[in-house]
């Protein structure tokens, strides 16, 4: 393997990894505040692509507007899921909420299969995303460049919301102690609703960017990216936003490099990722950043 090829493989890894990172932020955000792993996150991710797709295909809206509406609809879906599925279980044991999350996930997937059908659809992409640029001999798609940029922008917005707004203060308070926060006169349910809106909008953005890289959408498309992003969130230290990004890049690179260096192990690509998950859970359950940064976002 020569240097150009190696560099190309690195870029391939960064490209996949940045998408996992974006998704992982959504998992980690909701977990950090509620202590709930929202398994429906990966399905909201899928819904985001379909919303945007139908806006373009049926209402013939321009790309950027379709995506904006898609992301907004995701936020609405996220809030509805919270309202219908999680709020009634607020005081139930944590395992009940977890199982409900899995149930919601299956529900959305199968609803998708019934309503839009299992056959994949091609997702339209703007030139900005699909143009190919050449950097040091490596060929890089527009989307590969934009995803990390967008992820970092999102990080800034998140930090601003969480640390500089009243809602953010309330979110941090909820994550520390829900009951006390309620006693202080904060409408906890509303804050949680906002958290879900934020997390689901992130899933929507992630979905659209994913579809820009792999322009094929189907109702089950969220499952594997979701699992891998979840792994990334755990590797980075669940609850920690910077850790989630780091975890995403690690998972993406690990996945590409194992195929690049050991073609015979291609079939174990996904197994390899989940092995990383198991190893981390055994050896360092707090993840890479879990201990270094105590403050949870």
């Amino acid at each position, binding site marked *: 393997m020569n240097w150009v090829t190696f560099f190309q493989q690195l870029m391939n890894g960064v490209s996949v990894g940045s998408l996992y990172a974006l998704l992982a932020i959504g998992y980690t955000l909701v977990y950090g505040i509620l202590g709930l792993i929202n398994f429906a996150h990966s399905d909201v991710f899928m819904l985001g692509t379909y919303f945007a797709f139908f806006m373009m295909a049926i209402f013939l809206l321009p790309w950027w507007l379709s995506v904006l509406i898609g992301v907004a609809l995701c936020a609405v879906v996220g809030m509805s899921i919270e309202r219908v599925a999680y709020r009634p279980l607020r005081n139930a044991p944590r395992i009940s909420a977890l199982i409900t999350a899995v149930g919601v996930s299956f529900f959305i997937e199968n609803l998708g299969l019934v309503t839009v059908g*299992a056959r994949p659809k*091609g997702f339209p992409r703007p030139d900005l995303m699909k143009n190919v640029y050449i950097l040091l001999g490596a060929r890089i798609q527009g989307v590969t460049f934009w995803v990390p940029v967008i992820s970092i922008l999102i990080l800034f917005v998140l930090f601003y919301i969480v640390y500089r707004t009243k809602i953010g203060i309330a979110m941090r308070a909820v994550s520390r102690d829900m009951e006390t926060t309620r006693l202080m006169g904060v409408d906890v349910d509303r804050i949680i609703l906002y958290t879900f809106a934020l997390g689901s909008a992130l899933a929507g953005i992630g979905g659209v960017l994913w579809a820009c890289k792999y322009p094929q959408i189907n109702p089950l498309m969220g499952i594997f990216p979701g699992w891998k992003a979840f792994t990334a969130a755990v590797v980075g230290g669940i609850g920690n936003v910077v850790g989630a990004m780091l975890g995403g890049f690690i998972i993406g690179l690990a996945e590409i490099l194992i195929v690049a260096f050991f073609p015979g192990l291609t*079939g174990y690509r996904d197994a390899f990722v989940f092995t990383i998950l198991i190893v981390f859970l055994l050896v360092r359950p707090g993840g890479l950043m879990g201990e270094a940064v105590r403050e949870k976002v």
Partner: protein
Amino acid sequence: MSVRKLFVVVLCVGLLLGGVVSAQETIRIGANLEMTGAVAAYGQMIWEGVNLIREIVGDTVLGKKVELVLVDNKSDKVEAANATTRLIDKENVVAIIGPAISGSMLAAGPICEEKQIPIISATATNPLVTQGKKFVFRACFLDPYQAAAAAQFAREDLKAETAAVLSDIAQDYCVALGNFFKEEFEKRGGKVIVEQHCKTGDQDFSAQLTTIINANPDLLYVPNYYTEIALICRQARDLGYEGIILSADGADAPELFSVGGDAVEGLYHTAIWDATKGLNDIGQKYIDLYKERFGKDPNMFGALGADAYLILIHAIERAGSTDPVKIREAIEDTENLDVVTGKVTIENGDALKPVVVRKVEGGKFVFVKTVTVE
């Protein structure tokens, strides 16, 4: 006896009689198809084809109505086996139209063999599907035959000296095609310089393709299914691959174009059938009705689904009986039967017919030639 009790009794008797009467007057044929899951498009197209051909040739045989019983196998091997057992034990079918893909057909076959119910797949092309089995059939040609045709076309017509193979290791169909292609391509003096693999459901092939492009082959053979082919073509072109891409009959789905877009332009593939012109009367009728009904060109899967149905119906007619063992013998005796995709002969469970090569031009498949393996 109160009126209500009487009503219930009458209802029960009625249901029983109804059941008996319908059991005598219909012939039940099972359809074990991929209606959801990874290759849902195949199963749905086959189901369309089966229903369409029933409108053309009618839905009766031996003076009895043919009833189709559809069970979804979710594109999954285990579900395909369960669906087969259910069709035979609970639905009492006399024959089954089997799963579209080889892996699922390999799971369903042994059950039919044991219970002595003939099963015919429209499109499963792996040799193991029918090997050593008496009750398992297919309406299409085999993987080695198709791969040999592809290799011959690559060497003789495309003049490729070197080739790379990127196949899906989770699918028996893809692995077999890749191996047979390599064997035949090298037998004809070419060289397969790099072999890479992927797995069903993968969306990212950049690592494999980067390795392949680094080796710079004349031709890339991708004997996979349409979702993977479309994404592979996209990523190969984005990563700068400029050589020829050749695939197999798994490419034949409209999603290839909606997902692949301009990246699949110039893609060659081996196919079972070309939908622009019928090779016989029934083929033309099928094409006309399909276009009228769906407003687009028919696909190979639907056509082979129709073939599978026709082969079964003609066999039942020749057997003159609904005894599954007699039907099985009649299927094996099928010779030069005119079906939608041309003339078919069944030999050792397999269908024999020439291979069509097509190329993507302007967002659709264009007929190139037919190949008979020498």
